[in-house]
């Protein structure tokens, strides 16, 4: 016994003695946010950026590891290392763990695709590099006064992340099966009751399932205005009873009578594709087009948005406080919001994700190029979506709603 104890403590001692895997950062943080960008670009040359992002879509993977990486290499001498994760929470976990272990420099993550509660967690923990975003050369194409840019799920961005894409929630149906989908959430809920077993939603913490529940929550509250601003327990309790009541009432009419829910959006998509249910949804409607192309959805798939409005959000890229290659990460972040790169990303043939830029700041022909991008028939028209956009709730609301759902409906 004593030997084992010694050995195990020995490991701890070795860990304590080891210098936290450090790599010298050529510029201190203060210099990074104030230095002329040419200085940063020069410092970035030859660095490798570990870019963490959700890795379950081969179009995204191909775009990031392919043309995007090639451009960065050619133009800035930066190697982009795509690190696919199954869930962005894993990246947050990584940075949190590094912080706990006292690794304040030389961290594994240089850049992460992020928004919502993941952003809030890192920001509130002081785990992000801040104050640089609006100073990036290409930041002039971003409308920082737009509330949907300046706030990420209610958390003020405050220069701690750079907008990359916009997304808005949409529903999908199979036009061969459901020629006329219900136009409002109320009508949709009635449809579900009239067609038992033909709908379900993914259980939180799935990102998309959680968004669907928020729509019901906002519907119960009578609109997004009722839930705006910081979290308020009294307001939550008032709405929660009604909202979870609706969802509980709905349960017997759901797929498998609500005994279980799909645990992620892919399961819901598969149910939809195999005619087990008649609807699916996504916070990123371009998925429907891509899904038709890569065989995840039937060719007759179409998408729509509820007339009462659907949630819209912006997703960003952020740089952790302890990133090993901050200069290069800044250069990459800046390049990601260049009109040229945003246009390439918005092309459905590449990815199709909507731009985060303010088209009014672009030269007319550049703005026109965005407007002229083709649209897949399965994907809802961008203007139709924009007309129905609702701002996201703050991340605290989000947590409370998910936890409430798990307590009341999901068990």
């Amino acid at each position, binding site marked *: 016994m004593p030997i084992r104890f010694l050995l195990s403590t020995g490991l701890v001692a070795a860990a304590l003695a080891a210098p936290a895997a450090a790599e010298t950062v050529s510029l201190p943080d203060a210099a990074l946010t104030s230095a002329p960008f040419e200085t940063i670009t020069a410092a970035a040359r030859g660095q490798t950026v570990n870019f963490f992002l959700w890795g379950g879509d081969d179009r995204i993977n191909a775009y990031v590891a392919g043309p995007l990486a090639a451009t960065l290499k050619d133009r800035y001498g930066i190697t982009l290392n795509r690190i696919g994760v199954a869930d962005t929470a894993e990246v947050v976990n990584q940075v949190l763990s590094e912080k706990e272990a006292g690794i304040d420099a030389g961290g594994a993550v240089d850049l992460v695709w992020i928004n919502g509660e993941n952003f809030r967690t890192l920001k509130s923990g002081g785990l992000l590099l801040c104050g640089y975003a609006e100073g990036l050369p290409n930041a002039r194409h971003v409308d920082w006064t737009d509330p949907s840019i300046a706030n990420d799920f209610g958390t003020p961005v405050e220069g701690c992340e750079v907008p990359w894409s916009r997304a808005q929630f949409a529903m999908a149906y199979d036009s061969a099966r459901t020629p006329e989908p219900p136009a409002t959430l109320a009508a949709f809920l009635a449809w579900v009751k009239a067609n038992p077993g033909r709908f379900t939603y993914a259980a939180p913490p799935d990102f998309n399932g959680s968004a669907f529940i928020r729509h019901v929550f906002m519907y119960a509250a009578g609109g997004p205005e009722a839930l705006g601003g910081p979290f308020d327990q009294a307001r939550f309790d008032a709405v929660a009873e009604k909202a979870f009541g609706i969802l509980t009432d709905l349960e017997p009419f759901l797929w*498998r009578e609500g005994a279980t829910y799909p645990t992620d959006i892919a399961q819901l998509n598969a149910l939809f594709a195999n005619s087990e249910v008649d609807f699916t949804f996504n916070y990123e409607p371009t998925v429907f087009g891509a899904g038709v192309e890569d065989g995840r959805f039937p060719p007759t798939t179409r998408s729509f948005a509820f007339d009462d409005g659907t949630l819209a959000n912006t997703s960003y890229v952020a740089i952790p406080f302890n990133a090993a290659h901050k200069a290069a990460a800044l250069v990459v972040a800046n390049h990601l919001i260049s009109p040229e790169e945003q246009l390439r990303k918005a092309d459905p043939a590449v990815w199709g994700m909507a731009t985060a830029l303010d088209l009014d700041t672009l030269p007319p022909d550049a703005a026109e190029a965005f407007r002229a991008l083709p649209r897949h028939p399965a994907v809802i028209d961008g203007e139709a979506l924009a007309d129905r956009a609702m701002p996201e709730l703050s991340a605290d609301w989000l947590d409370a709603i998910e936890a409430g759902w798990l307590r009341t409906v999901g068990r």
Partner: protein
Amino acid sequence: MTERARLVLMLAPTVALLAGLFLGGLALAALRTVGIVPLAGRFDPTAEPWARALGAPDVLASIGVTLWIASAATLVATVLGLAAALLLRRAGGGRLMTLLVQFNLTVPHVVTAVGLLWLLGQSGWIARIGHGAGLIDRPADFPVLVADPAFVAVILAYVAKEVPFVAVVTLAMLAAVGTGPAETARSLGASRWQAFRHVTWPLIRPGVLAAATVVFAFVLGTYEVPAVLGPSHPKALPVLAYQMFTSNDLADRPAAIALSLVAAAIGVACLMAVRRLMSGLPTLKVAR
């Protein structure tokens, strides 16, 4: 060098590694759940993570279903594995057949889980054949086997993986025992079944039960199978623990460790059972 020094030298690397990594990891995990983090020099003893872990919604149900999955999978896999070994021997134990029985042994669990998802889902391959044969009309008519409250698909995935393991161990035990004892029993008037029941089975039992225990403990701690095939609630213990470990709420992490220690505690109980079972054997001649 003395004999004793040589022995110590041979054993030291393994003992050091397992004591350091395995016991050390376990010890650090346990300390963490009571608020002690040697690495960060933190020492605030608390029982909060345990309260949080055991107070999380569905935790008891999770422990319950995990034990159910492990028991059911172990029972079915052991019976079928034993049967497979005996059948293989009766069938003459052709090399190809033995190879095919063993095949799943080499397949990662996540692959088996995905295969079963596509096979047994309500719109899976068997359901489609049922539709083609006119037995069912809609996917909903097909029995619920995936993401079901009884964890049928999860259990079947483990069965598919562990039957070969039990069979291989049993075959090894049978080979070690040889046919002599059974032949003697037959010549003394025992029927084939009696010879097995009273002579062969008691001889191979320790090995088979040890294999069953390993299967049981293994199922307790495997994440990928219930993650792919389990329902949204209650979740199997490893799934719940991993989800809590990667939760946004920092306070969830020690609670997640506490949950995984519950699984580890059940595993330790299994280890003691195995030790008892194995005490009759010179060395554990099993492998997987």
